[in-house]
Every structure is written in structure tokens, then in C-alpha cells.
């Protein structure tokens, strides 16, 4: 349907959101990403039965940790949708883009920004198992 969504999002493919580790999420922020969101199948629809529930737990774990060290838990988010639901995928992308803009650049990066100029706020999106949305 070629719906448009913000171009700040890059997708990394995994077989199931159950494969996304807390370390992966933290690594993104450590490297300077401004936001990470994990997109998995609808609850109860996971092809591997419980993958997306695990992912939800890890996202919560990451949220608490990022809050406590001052990066901000709102930068990481778990979303669930069915692979044919393109409009919802776009809504999640827009919400995430807005949330990241609202939260401002990653504090880790902002602090060191004085040494370098950064153009565009890249946000890495971890999109799992839902394949292409045409």
C-alpha cells in the first residue's frame, strides 16, 4: 500500500522477538541510538507461542534500568501487531518517532555532542519476525 512512515527508523530482522536480548537493547543506547522499539506478533499469535511475552519482560527490564541511569525508559518500547496490519505499523513508527523527538537526543550522545556535530537523530528499530509490509 506504500504507506509512508518516518525515515529515521532502521529495521533489524530477527526470527522472533523472543531472540531480542536486553544486551542488544542496551548496546544500541551505548552506541548512541535515541530510541529502540521491539515489534512482535500479536499476543497469543506468536508462531513460537511465548516469544513475544519474553520480549515484553525484557523491554520492561531495560526500561527500568534506563530510567534509573538517567537515559529515560520512554526511549524503549514493545509493540505487537499482525503482519498484515500496515496502518498500525505506521502508527507505531510515528509514535516512536514522536516519542524520541520529545525525549530529545540520547543523553550519552548529547553530552559528547559538543565535540562533534550530529545531523540526523538515527533511531534503531528492532523489527522481529514480521517481514515486509508492502
Amino acid at each position: 500500500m506504500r504507506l509512508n512512515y518516518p525515515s529515521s527508523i532502521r529495521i533489524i530482522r530477527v526470527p522472533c522477538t523472543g531472540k531480542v536480548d536486553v544486551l542488544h537493547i542496551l548496546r544500541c543506547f551505548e552506541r548512541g541510538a535515541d530510541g529502540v522499539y521491539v515489534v512482535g506478533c500479536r499476543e497469543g499469535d506468536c508462531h513460537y507461542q511465548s516469544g513475544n511475552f519474553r520480549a515484553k519482560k525484557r523491554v520492561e527490564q531495560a526500561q527500568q534500568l534506563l530510567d534509573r541511569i538517567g537515559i529515560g525508559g520512554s526511549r524503549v518500547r514493545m509493540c505487537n501487531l499482525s503482519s498484515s496490519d500496515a496502518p498500525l505499523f505506521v502508527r507505531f513508527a510515528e509514535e516512536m518517532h514522536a516519542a524520541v523527538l520529545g525525549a530529545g537526543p540520547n543523553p550519552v550522545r548529547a553530552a559528547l555532542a559538543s565535540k562533534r556535530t550530529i545531523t540526523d537523530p538515527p533511531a534503531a528499530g528492532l523489527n522481529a519476525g514480521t517481514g515486509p509490509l508492502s
Partner: protein
Amino acid sequence: MEHVRVDEISAGPMPAESSPVGAVMVVGGGIAGIQSALDLANSGYYVYLVEKSSAIGGLMSQLDKTFPTNDCAM
């Protein structure tokens, strides 16, 4: 409807002089056609899936969600 013995249909008494053609023609590309075609292909037969419209999928491809699990029909 006179009573047809079971083995007449499902048994394989082939005409002696020629062995069968290892291919099946499935007429209709809906969910039933697709499933039988896949099962036959995975059992070592060559399948001709004949569909009236320009793509397979039939009525099910038009459905949004399917009961009872409500996951997407596609």
C-alpha cells in the same frame, strides 16, 4: 445408491499394461486446492494447480480475520 465396495475406489489395481502417470491435476486454487497441491507435491507427485482467476487464494484471501483464533486470514 447401491453399495460400492470400499476397495474399488482406494485400492490401486492399475491397468496391467501401463503404469500410472505420477502427476495430479488440482482444479481450483482456493485454500483446499493449495493444501491438496502441497500435500501431493510433498509426497513426490508433480502437481498442475489450475486456477480460474489471475492468482490463487480463493475466497479465504478476501477474509480479514478467521475464527476462532482471530488471527489474520492472509
